[in-house]
């Protein structure tokens, strides 16, 4: 998955409205985990995401530029298959009901 305005936050594990301080903190934390000499590819993505999120105009431009690629529904499905659905809290708790 390449970095785009739509997923840059995910790359840096940030919320949409993160402040510049939070952005910087998240960036530095991830760079420590994935330094350029050891993990150059990941670092490139992290850096690209950071640059995109640091510049609101660039981010807005990217958000307003439609992707040429068609969304891949099969890829979304394949991704979903890797993760189990999460149960609603009460349903989960009910799985511990005592036997009748």
């Amino acid at each position, binding site marked *: 998955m390449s970095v785009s305005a*739509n997923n840059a936050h995910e790359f840096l594990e940030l*919320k*949409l*409205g*993160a*402040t510049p301080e939070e952005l910087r903190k998240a960036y530095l934390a991830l760079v420590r985990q994935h330094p350029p000499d050891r993990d150059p590819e990941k670092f490139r993505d992290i850096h690209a995401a950071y640059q995109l999120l640091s510049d*609101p*105009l660039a*981010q*807005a*431009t990217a*958000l*307003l*530029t*439609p*992707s*040429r690629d*068609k*969304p*891949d*529904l*099969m890829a*979304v*499905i394949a*991704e*979903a*298959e*890797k*993760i*189990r*659905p*999460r*149960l*609603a*809290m*009460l*349903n*989960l*708790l*009910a*799985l*511990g*009901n*005592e*036997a*009748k």
Partner: protein
Amino acid sequence: MASRKSKQKNKGKANRADLAKRQNQRLEKRLDPAAAAAAKSLEIRPVVGSSERTEDAAIFNREQRLSLAEPLQVEAANVIESLELTSLGKFEDAIAKLKDIARSSPFSDWRLFVRGLHAFYAGDVETARQNWSKLETKRRPARIASTLLLAETGMPLSDAIASHQKDLLEHTQSLRLRKNAVTAAEAIAKVRHRDPEVTFSISQFAMLLNFISSFRKLDPEFVSRVGQTCVGLSIKQGDLEVFDKLKKLVPGPADDPNWNRTKSTYLLDFKDTGDLMEKASLAYIEQDLPNLSGMAEPLKKALSCQIYLQVATAEAERSESEFSFGFIFGSRNVDYKGVNSLLRKAIQCYPTYRLGHEKLIASLKKEFEWNDRSYDGTKERGARLEKEILAAKEAMVRALPDEVETSLELIDIYLDEDELEKANALVKNLSGQRLEDPLAKALPWKLKLKEAMRLSRRKADLAMASKALEEAEAIWPVWLNKNWLPFLKAGLALRGGDQASFEKRTAEARESQKTSVLVGDLMTFAALQEMNIPGPDLKVFRTGVEPKLEKANELKLSDLFSIGSFFWDLTRTGFKHKGYRMQASKAGKAFVKKLKSFTQEDLSPVQINAYSWGAFHKFWPSGNDPLPSPDFLRRARKEPRLAAAILSWLLGLSWFPRNRIADYVPLMAIVKEAARTEKDAFYRYQFDKVSDGFNAIFQELNAEEERRKSYGSRSDGYDDDDEDEDDDDDEFDEDDFLDDEDDLLDDEDDSDDELCDCPDCRAKRARATKVFDNELRSQPKVIADVFAKLGPSGAVKIAQIIQQNLAPEQFVTAIGKLFLSYGVSPDKTIEFVMFIKNQPGAFEEDFSSDTDPDAKAVKQSIDEIKDARKRREKELERKKREASRSSR
């Protein structure tokens, strides 16, 4: 006849309605068990058991929770919050909530449980089991864990708690239901479309509807992802009917919850959708953005700014396209007030957005030009617009102090208006920057010269004026000749009353420069005007110039060349004297007229200057035509300075003829090439600037093309019939949808564009691609690169263009247009054109010089591709006939 047709159509419709019904029934049958299981799964609620510990019951029972000691109530609340966060996928936050629960706490089992649950949700059953193996078996966390493991692996957490789970197992369906949801989603994804332009059909929409209603409550995240992807697919096709229905059904992503931004971006690239686009854009800015509490404010402002700009640009372009001769007369249809208001709003949202300022200034200039040319333009309006342009430029420089070009323009205006303080402030501001523009570097010289001219007003200041002139001389730009300087000095001497010095200096200057009488008179007159010689004294010099220019058609061409060269220096340095406008207009028109009989091939520097001046001022007879006269174009192809002057003129137009851009590709190639070797700093910078300007336009055009290609091919995004029927504010009505469905299925069934997916046809397509790939490898690199981008159809088009035996300029134009339409980069286009152009005999008849191996190779390459295509087509045709015969 009509009635029979109508009956046939109705019959066809009925058949297709049956088909749709059957399709839906099959779908429901497939989805029903899943939906039922989902409902069953969702029925279950936690119940306090007879041997339940209070701490465990406290997690879902308020009374039990309140019966706990206060510190334990806090821990219970933390566990609840942690479980809620887990259900939202916020695992880190969920773990953080439990960090204060000690090992000795009765809630420590819940902490362990949550950790295991996270591993379980991430698909790591082993880690989950390890965490959960430490749980106390008689408590609720262990029972939940055991049920989950039993459902997932068939093995409970321990035999001690295995018995009770069998009753509960049916309630774990939700875990396994993901498989059903996945199957249903795959069914949607696997629908094949007969029309290759359809990316999401109405039958897929029907399937998605069922999918959402079946799995929405059970697996909201997956349903949301699938739904959003489907909306994304629906907007990739040429019409918005399905998108409009889908967007009411599927909430958009966090930054575009109502899909308004997506819709406005889509509509931007279609004609005749201005109102719809504006409506969606403004809904996003005014209704959606203020409510997006999760979005950072700077991003909101940047988005608002750019969307306002998009709406304004689209509105202006739409109005222009409605008026075919807008490029000549200005666009009277443009709602300048509305457009400029949107542009101002854009700047207000984000004052440092350069493009916003540029667009506002361009729009105001365009309005000014329209007012100037229009029969209903007024002087008052012109004056107001001049002020608005000035204010817009000042606002731009205030917001962007490093903006060089606008600063230079403002400095010229201030100098003309004698507002030296304002000019000085800007010069000071620019002096802090590292400037490459020779004109910007020459600012101190310009200021000094202007200062000398200003000081010459008062006789008491003449000594200072003379000193300023000397200082200007000392820093005279190396790229500018000093021809005018002795005339300026002479003018200053006359202003001081030293007639003898004046005469001596002018005579020397005339002699050394070998100017004609008229040109010498003109340079003297211009200098005297700038040195503030009083009107009565000036009269005698005026009579030596202006009556002659009134009859400029009678002047010798050599004089007009010299006048043009002198005026070119004044134009490029921004030193147009008071009478310049009238004199230039008269001389320019006569100059261009006389050039018709000018046949000399190689131009002298003076002649090149005069041509450049003529081009820059578009003095050719059809002055409003976006193309210069053929003579200018022919000479510009040999002379980069002239080419650059033409391109500079074009770039300065507020109505740049973007549809004619391919016509300028050859000129741009020449200028770009010359930039590498030009020694004159002024021209070298100008060549680079022109290249950059055109590259930016090419990039913009390519980006637009890319955007267009990212959607389907319909012109307006809507089917003509129901464009007005679909009101955005309507709630989605399933009955309406089902009524429409027949018509839409109609379209799908009628289409015969389907690519056959049988093994035979797939293999044929693969073979065809292989042939084309092999051909590519055998081409010269530049041709191969271009062909790779264009594909087989583009290669054939190139061959067709070459075979037309076009004149060089027509060939280049045709190639340029073709390449642009395929999104080939300007660099590659130029490289290709230069490659072809440099082939000896390239433009000779049919490229068929047998003696020229290169030209022959080019032709051969093209012929080979054509032959290969013909062979391929014949082969396909033959196979088709065979298949047809065998089926009979």
